[in-house]
């Protein structure tokens, strides 16, 4: 089975890091995985997105243009660009703190998550990306809370171990 995920939002929202955490989880679970960022002239405040492909066989193209299995959209531009490309039966996780329009698709599962507000309450709006992971925990069987904790230790463990508890708290607050 092959799962294609798009993470998309403003530069600075932790979109690329979020994709990297999910890719690390997949790697640790023994799957094949690719992580591919958009790398145009991106900057803080502009748009950023990355594609993560997880599969039990060798992955061909690391690019994801259509047939998205799961979309994590953290701003309006992301919804406009990618919601129509989620395949029927797929999942969309929308950061409803920032996305103004109510997304319309009745052939996919949409979960609106008040991510930025929840993150602010937990202590730092920067962990809104992690709150979005709670949607994956509820609606997909891609990974568990324990998997996330393991990947966080791999990603932040050496340089920023102090950040791990806040990130875990953020995910739990979203659940």
């Amino acid at each position, binding site marked *: 089975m092959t799962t294609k995920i798009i993470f998309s939002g403003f530069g600075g929202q932790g979109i690329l890091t979020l994709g*990297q955490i999910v*890719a*690390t989880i997949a*790697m640790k679970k023994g799957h*094949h*995985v*690719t*992580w*591919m*960022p958009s*790398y*145009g*002239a991106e900057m803080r405040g502009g748009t950023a997105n990355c594609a993560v492909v997880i599969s039990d066989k*060798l*992955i*061909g*193209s*690391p*690019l994801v*243009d259509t047939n998205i299995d799961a979309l994590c959209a953290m701003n309006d531009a992301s919804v406009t660009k990618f919601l129509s490309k989620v395949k029927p039966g797929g999942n969309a996780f929308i950061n409803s703190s920032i996305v103004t329009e109510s997304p319309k698709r009745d052939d996919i599962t949409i979960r609106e998550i008040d991510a930025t507000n929840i993150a602010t309450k937990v202590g730092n709006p920067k962990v809104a990306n992690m709150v979005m992971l709670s949607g994956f925990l509820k609606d997909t069987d891609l990974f568990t809370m324990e998997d996330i904790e393991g990947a966080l230790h791999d990603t932040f463990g050496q340089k920023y171990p102090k950040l791990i508890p806040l990130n875990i708290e953020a995910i739990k607050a979203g659940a």
Partner: protein
Amino acid sequence: MSKKVLMKGNEAMCLAAIMAGCKAYFGYPITPQNEIPEYMSQHMEESGGVFIQAESEIAAINMVYGAAAGGVRAMTSSSSPGIALKQEGISYLVGSDLPCVIVSVSRGGPGLGGILPSQADYFQSTRGGGNGDYYIPVYAPSSVQESVDLTIKSFEIADKYRTPVMVLVDGLLGQMMEPVEIKDYKPTLIEKPWATNGDSGRRKRNIVNSLSLNAEGLEETNLRRFEKYKEILKTEEMVENHVKDGDEMAIVAYGTPSRIVLNAIDILAEQGIKAGLIRPVTLWPFPYSTFANLPSSVKNILVCELSMGQMIEDVRQGVQGKHPIHFYGRTGGVIFSPEEIAKKAAEVAKGGA
């Protein structure tokens, strides 16, 4: 012992270079390879090596000349217009029989072009823009793991044959992350009695130079170099050939686009069209013989490149008119989708294109 880590292609090639005993890196920033000088600036010193951000690409390749002449494993990296600037230096390195590794992370051209992935530097890499009779080995990995393995191999090949070696990837592979298995590796460094490394007056002084004003002498040097090329052509060719008896089409692609072709081949299989991938891993030496011995079931060959068609000339030379050759490419940084390739291949199979 080995461990698995998630790494970007650009960073993984740096790690591989350091594992291979690279002790001198010189570079100048250009997208999409900036992670290379960034990584090297952090890690060369701690591994006992040297990192210098040169004042230009030309300066960087000439610093490589100096370091290589001194006998250490040296590397530079750049992207398309930057590699164009390095061509003079590459020719001088060849002319002085100096080993080094050049990483080329190509982007759209000509000129300053764009920053998105492209394969329009096939001619630049395999034919070279430097003057004189020469070739350099060119490796074209298609995954982050392979870019690690082939970077290490490039340093070995460079020393073995005293030649610059190029690792050619497109921006896609430079930017993407994949799990990489990092195995324990200890480089085998060979003696370099020709190196200008001082040696405290114990031997006659060495001179490293590409100037030779005596025509017969220069011819002899060139003939000797081509003996070396003969050996490389005979032993260093690498290719992945998935074409099986019964396949009606061979699709040829190198680098990351070969992975997009694999997706297209799955789509074609659903339509009942049997196709197999041929992926040249070394672009020079090019695996010509693979194309001379294809199964008789192969009716058509489709070459897919992120360019207007450059490798297709080598494919033609290999096929020698035995099979019709078709082409599908996108250029300027546009990347083809598996569906586009499958559509073209289906047309070819029906005899329409």
